[in-house]
């Protein structure tokens, strides 16, 4: 019964998401797709921040590197298949994370935050200040990838609804894969590292290798989000790698609940909704966002994902008083 109450809201939300494009306008379909992409991005960051205790402040680098990989591998006139451009862009992001991880994972705490930021800024300026990717203007994607299966075109990415369903399927896939991963011994080792790295070393774990493994995986997943983003918008800009972007996704994780998988998803929906709402309300929408984040951090230390547990506690307490 308890299990039912926990999974029911998830199933209901999934049902709504499945039928959503049939009722909403294209604008909203794209908005929800953008939100789900942010959710994947935030889940990947939460692997580091929430599960391993690595506060990366440069996670946008991997998001952007994958997006640029797609754009740069699509010269005018070329038509790429998603079956290779998707894995290649994800691997490019993972490879960047592997190389950067070798350096940044030798630092801890505040130094780790600064060094991840520094590497991300390097990547930002690489695309911003050179002609490699169109400079500060970025570049348009010459053509969207195609998706054929057994000679049939199964999805056309000129159609936002098709992108929406691909994004939704991948969000579910990522969520379920990570849920499985975190329940394995590997997941327990990550949590052990977050909780007490010294003890993990004393028990015989070479924690550097595990941190590098998860840093690479998280980079690859951020790359998946970057790929989907460029698929949706059709262009890339250096802003995708900027530190604002790294900061935003960190906010999404904090807002939703660090160290949970559903938290980043809730955080993404709240973040985008708030952004849309506040943008329509005032010019300085960041101000509204800032106040909201401060309120959540003070009132809900566990983020939005902690609300059900709080409500349950309140109810139990209420029942005891009766």
């Amino acid at each position, binding site marked *: 019964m308890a299990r039912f109450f926990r999974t029911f809201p998830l199933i209901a939300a999934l049902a709504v998401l499945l039928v959503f494009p049939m009722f909403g306008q294209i604008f909203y379909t794209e908005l929800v797709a953008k939100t789900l992409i942010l959710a994947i991005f935030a889940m990947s960051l939460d692997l580091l921040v929430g599960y391993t205790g690595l506060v990366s402040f440069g996670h946008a680098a991997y998001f952007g590197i994958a997006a640029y990989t797609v754009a740069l591998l699509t010269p005018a006139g070329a038509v790429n298949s998603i079956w290779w451009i998707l894995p290649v862009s994800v691997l490019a992001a993972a490879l960047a994370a592997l190389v950067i991880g070798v350096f940044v994972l030798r630092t801890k705490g505040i130094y780790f935050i600064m060094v991840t930021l520094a590497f991300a800024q390097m990547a930002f300026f690489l695309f911003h200040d050179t002609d490699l990717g169109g400079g500060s203007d970025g570049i348009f994607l010459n053509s969207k990838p195609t998706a054929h299966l057994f000679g049939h075109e199964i999805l056309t990415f000129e159609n936002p609804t098709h992108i929406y369903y691909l994004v939704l399927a991948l969000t579910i896939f990522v969520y379920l894969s990570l849920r499985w991963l975190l329940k*394995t*011994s590997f997941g327990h080792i990550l949590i052990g590292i977050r909780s007490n790295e010294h003890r993990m070393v*004393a028990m015989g774990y070479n924690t550097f290798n595990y941190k590098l493994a998860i840093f690479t995986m998280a980079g690859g997943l951020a790359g998946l989000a970057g790929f989907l983003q460029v698929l949706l918008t059709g262009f890339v800009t250096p802003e995708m790698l900027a530190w604002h972007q790294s900061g935003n996704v960190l906010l999404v994780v904090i807002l939703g609940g660090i160290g949970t998988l559903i938290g980043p998803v809730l955080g993404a929906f709240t973040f985008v909704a708030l952004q849309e709402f506040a943008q329509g309300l005032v010019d300085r929408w960041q101000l509204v966002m800032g106040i909201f984040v401060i309120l959540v951090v003070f009132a809900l230390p566990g983020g939005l994902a902690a609300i059900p547990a709080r409500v349950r506690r309140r109810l139990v307490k209420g029942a005891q008083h009766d």
Partner: protein
Amino acid sequence: MTERHREVFLEARSLSRHFGGLAANSNVSVTLRRGEIHALLGPNGAGKSTFINMLSGDLPPSSGTILLKGEDVSGLPAHRRSRIGIGRSFQRTNIFPTFSVQENCVLAAQSRQQQPGKIFRPPLHNQAVVDRSHEVMALTGLAHCGSQIAGTLSHGEQRQLEIAMVLATNPIVLLLDEPLAGMGADESSRMVDLLARLRRDHAILLVEHDMDAVFALADVITVLVNGELLESGPPAQIKASPAVRSAYLGEDEEIDHV
């Protein structure tokens, strides 16, 4: 069997460690044998923790050699020392508070099985690791609370879990940093019993302030003062030593009433 015949598991030869101009340890040599509890005594700041940290690999020695069963392990990092059989427990309890007691033991035992095929599976699906967790929980008296969240255990039980986690890694050498710290009389005597049982198969280095326990358990006692080895020998010799008495000036009452 006399002391001379017992197998040497760990040998520290003239270990020194300097922090800037301060000599935390100078030329300390200690031999740990299977079947022996070797107690390390000394006032606060004598360099006991530095010594343990050098043996466990947490601190590289400035000079000196560490041999495990005759092999030089001085250059190995801490995680490798653990893998080859040097297990340590901590003075401050160092458990994983959000995991259950069994999950703590499983995580420790899993460190011997880090192959990818064994890591990417639910921890409780690995029978060898689960079996080991049951063994060490039974050995340390935690069999009844395997599913309890470790953070909710009493202080004494957390200390027991601390030892259980070290044992789960199958060490041959145990470096125990104040295992009795903060324990009540009952818990203390249970732990003393446990240490006496562990002596049979392990070489144990025991840092402990509880003198009753030390003199009840130790086969050999080494006294450190200001980072230097003051005296080493059987408990009777240490108790009678004028040098030890004067070093423990003000604490000699404690030794007397034993």
